[in-house]
Each structure stands twice: as structure tokens, then as C-alpha cells.
């Protein structure tokens, strides 16, 4: 449907927010948050992406089916990444080594337990 154009103010606000988020993600990268560095960076990038998609690409005003198409794209990308990672990250879980000459090495207790392998 020919949607009425957004107000100029909306574009400027979105533009400034994007610049601010870029600065934020760069600054946060200089702090050592350990594992959370990646999580924070991805969250900020996702926020910027959503801003561009919703306002610059007018997804807010388009038909529901177009919104559904966009959502499907993100969902399928997540499918590909998550299921592939589910293989890589869990490779060492079940195959546990066993002593060659089976002497009780110091921590044989967790010999058969599940451990965070490579």
C-alpha cells in the first residue's frame, strides 16, 4: 500500500541513534568483558540493524507478509548457525578417553562423566 512518508524528524533521530550506537560498540570493545564482549557487540549490531530495517526500509509500514518474509530470513539464518554450532561445540562430549593400561590416574572419577571437551 502506498504508505504516507515518515516525518523528516524520524529519519534524523534514527540516524543519530545509529551513530551513537556505533560509538558505543567501539567504546565497549575497549573494556575487557570476557565472554560478554561478543554478546554486547552482537546485541548493539542487532539493534542498529533493526533500526535501519524498521525505519529506513519502511518495514514498519509495509504489508504483514513482507514483515513475515524479513522475519523468516533472520530465523533461517539463526537455524543454519545454531544447528551447525550444535555439532561443533559438542564434539568432545561423549567420546571419553580411557586409560591405556587402566591405572587409576588421579581424576578417574570424571572419567565417564561429560566434560567440556574441545
Amino acid at each position: 500500500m502506498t504508505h504516507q512518508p515518515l516525518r523528516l524528524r524520524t529519519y534524523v533521530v534514527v540516524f543519530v541513534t545509529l551513530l551513537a550506537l556505533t560509538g558505543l560498540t567501539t567504546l565497549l570493545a575497549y573494556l575487557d568483558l570476557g565472554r560478554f564482549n561478543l554478546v554486547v557487540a552482537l546485541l548493539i549490531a542487532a539493534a542498529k540493524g533493526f533500526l535501519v530495517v524498521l525505519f529506513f526500509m519502511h518495514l514498519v509500514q509495509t504489508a504483514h507478509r513482507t514483515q513475515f518474509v524479513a522475519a523468516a530470513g533472520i530465523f533461517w539464518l539463526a537455524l543454519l548457525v545454531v544447528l551447525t554450532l550444535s555439532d561443533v561445540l559438542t564434539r568432545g562430549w561423549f567420546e571419553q578417553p580411557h586409560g591405556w593400561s587402566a591405572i587409576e590416574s588421579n581424576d578417574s572419577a570424571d572419567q565417564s562423566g561429560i566434560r567440556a571437551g574441545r
Partner: protein
Amino acid sequence: MSEAHAAVAHQFEGLEQQRDAATLAMWIFLVTEVMFFGGLFTGYAIYRASYPEAFAAGSRLCEVNLGAINTVVLITSSFTMALAVRAAAAGRSRAAIVCLVLTLGLGATFLGIKFLEYAHKYEEHIVPGLNFTYSGPSARQIELFICFYFGMTGLHALHMIIGLVVVTVMVIFTARGRLAPPKDTPIEITGLYWHFVDIVWIFLFPLLYLVDVHR
């Protein structure tokens, strides 16, 4: 996709149906692009999970300041493209041309900075396949990271070049007055494509440049 002569192509009932079809087609095409880049992101995710230290070391080889400038340049070009689409929809073709040319300039700047980075890497002899002579602990995995760096940013730069060509065509068509409303759908579609390329870079910047800046 621009029907130069008749406003509505013969297979459509009306203008509304044609615009709906064009935007839906573009969004579906962008989903195929998401999955296309998705393959590279999956590879990146796997190898970053398998070799965290090597990816951190590799990321330190990338120039963060140039990456940050590029991100700002591309977000600004996205802003000017959005203004261009808005102006074209309102029929103000002069303003649309100005914004489109601004977008072209910013896009060219981005590519300039990008090839500057490539040149630096070539001088430091860390271009995989050509002259990769980096030695040190886990050199192989760092080469893998740099290979993903070139793969992802190279594919992105290729999409930028295609975008620049299409925007140039839009400028010419607008100047000739062929894209006055209600025939301004092609500009809106070019805008969608341009914003998509910007979003890809928004994700590339933290993943490639900001992996391990704090050490």
C-alpha cells in the same frame, strides 16, 4: 524492472499490485542475500568457537579506526539514501538527485577506505593465497581469520560496487524524469538494497574489527 513507457506492466491489474509485487520481490531477494552471507557467518562462527585466541590475534591485525570511519560513512550514506527515497516519493526530483549523488560519494569513500586497508594488508604481507608470510604461534588459524576477513569484506565490497552502479542508473533516470511518481518504485527498491548492504557491514564491523581490541 522499470517499465519505461506504460506506468503499469501488462500482466498487472493496477499500479498498487505492481508496487506490491516489486517490493515483495526485493524483500525476498534480500532474504536470499541474507542466506548467502549467512554461509560465511556460519563458517566464521565455527572457527571463532574453535580457535578463539587465533581469531583475537587476527582481529588485532585489522585497523579499527579505519573500520569505525567506514561504519560512520556507510550509516550516513544509508541516511542520505533514505532521504532520496523520501524526496522521490514526494516528487521533488532535484532533492532526490542531490541525495543520490551524496550517497554515491559516500559509497565511493567507503570503497576507497576499504581498498586502502587491503593495500596496507598487502604491504604487511598478510594476504592469504597471494603473499601470506605471517609466522608465529597458530599462524595457520590467523590466516584462516584473514581469509574470512577478505572473503566477507570482499563480497560486501562487490555488493557495494553493484549498488553504486544501480544508484548511478537511478540518478540518470531521475534526471530524465522517468522516475516521477507514481513510477518511483525503482528508487525505493534501490534504497532497500542499499540499506541491506549497510546492515551487512553493521554486523561485519564488530565481528571482524572489535574481537579483541581491549588487550
